[in-house]
């Protein structure tokens, strides 16, 4: 579903990714773990198309299409979702308005019918409820005044509403207390665990993987995948640290 081949990328002329190759087939959840500065967030941003993140070599395809040739909004319409490590605040725009415009723009791009106001509100309320978010928060400006945990939960509510084919989740677990972690983990399983969907889960810690069990675990270090394995690799990393496990 997502195939990354020998991907090299630079940020401000500094090489960050130095040949990442990775294949996430439909129906699988892959976790990427690695120390700070190993390039995890850069990989997420390159996949989503953030300006300033330049690909210098290699490539990536998504559902057979050249992912890197698409603009960020085209990637979204193709079914890619990036859950931000630091969700962005947008004053003056309610979360309802923001996600509705996002979803309907995607649907138009795919030649699907737009959702009416009533249909959309019903969907948004359902998703907020499933993730344990107060529906009143949907009326507030996007992420403004939300706590760290509320922002991550709100990202998952957006994901639930948009219902993407593939999610790249960048440290969605950071800033969550144990209850929030459980409900976010359950949310990821509910929204994304499906034979025709895929997930790339970027995380520092094993703890989210207790709730969202990965099919494969990859260790990223210095912009390269240095080890891959099954779910047991995450436990080994947790026990022995990145230095030992990557050696």
């Amino acid at each position: 579903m997502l195939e990354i081949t020998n991907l090299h990328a630079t940020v401000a002329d500094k090489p960050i990714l130095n040949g990442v190759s990775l294949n996430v087939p439909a129906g699988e959840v892959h976790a990427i773990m690695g120390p700070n500065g190993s390039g995890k967030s850069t990989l997420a941003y390159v996949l989503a198309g953030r300006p300033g993140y330049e690909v210098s070599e290699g490539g990536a395809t998504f559902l057979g299409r050249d992912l890197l040739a698409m603009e960020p909004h085209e990637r979204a319409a193709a079914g890619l979702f990036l859950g931000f490590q630091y969700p962005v605040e947008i004053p003056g725009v309610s979360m309802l308005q923001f996600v509705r415009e996002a979803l309907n723009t995607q649907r138009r791009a795919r030649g699907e019918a737009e959702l009416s106001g009533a249909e959309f509100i019903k969907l948004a309320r359902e998703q907020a409820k499933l993730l344990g978010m107060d529906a009143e928060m949907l009326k507030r400006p996007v992420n403004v005044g939300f706590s760290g945990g509320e922002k991550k939960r709100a990202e998952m509510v957006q994901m639930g509403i948009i219902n993407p084919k593939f999610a790249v989740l960048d440290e969605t677990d950071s800033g969550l207390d144990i209850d929030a972690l459980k409900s976010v983990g359950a949310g990821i399983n509910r929204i994304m665990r499906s034979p025709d969907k895929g997930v790339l889960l970027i995380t520092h810690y094993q703890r989210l993987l207790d709730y969202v069990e990965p099919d494969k675990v990859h260790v990223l270090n210095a912009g390269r995948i240095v080890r891959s394995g099954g779910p047991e690799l995450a436990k080994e990393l947790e026990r022995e640290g990145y230095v030992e496990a990557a050696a």
Partner: protein
Amino acid sequence: MTAPFPTRKQEEWRYADLDALRPVWQQFAEPLTLTVGPGESFEKIWLPGDEDVLVRRVQIALEAGAKARIYVLNAASEYGRTELEVSLAEGADFELFGANIGTGLSTNEIVTNVRHVGVGGRSRQTVRSVLNGKATGSYLGKVEVARGAQQTDAEQSVKAMLLDRGATANCKPELEIFADDVKCAHGASVGELDAMQLFYAESRGLDPASARALLLEGFVMGLWDSAKDADAIGEAAREALRRVVG
């Protein structure tokens, strides 16, 4: 007897489009005056009109404990000016939420003189400008705190967004304080749209033009949050923004 025609040497007319003003000066020379009685509240929403030149000159006297809240959208195609002279007696409260949205060669400006005369007055002025082409948007805001107007609490927040290199924003908060126990804050910024906000919106599926439009809308629409009925001014602001974003 008509008041003399202003000149650019007068600070409060420094950025005005006097050529546009000249033919219509007669009708605006005399400011409108109104008084809000003790403890009373006054709320007004001023929308842009169809005229190419629209000038509003209003003097408001707030008596003890009186409240006034003004919402104004300046979006004239040639010259729009909202001029407010407000005096606050003891415990009076004044709030202004204003936007300049301009395109082409237009000049839109909000010019205020807020005089805290009594003890414990509070004023809040929030102005947002969105400008493209060679448009000019200005805020000239003077806050005077008279001797004896202790515990005055005054705030001015001015932000402008320039969408083209040729657009101009003038932000000039000015304080004149003759009391020693007061709080007067002001902040001004002129910027472009935030790159991270744009990327966030685009990564959720909004195309670049829609993302810009949405972010600009948010920049302005937050002004009307406290209005009792913001439908008309909200719709007028959206329409003005559509002309600016194109």
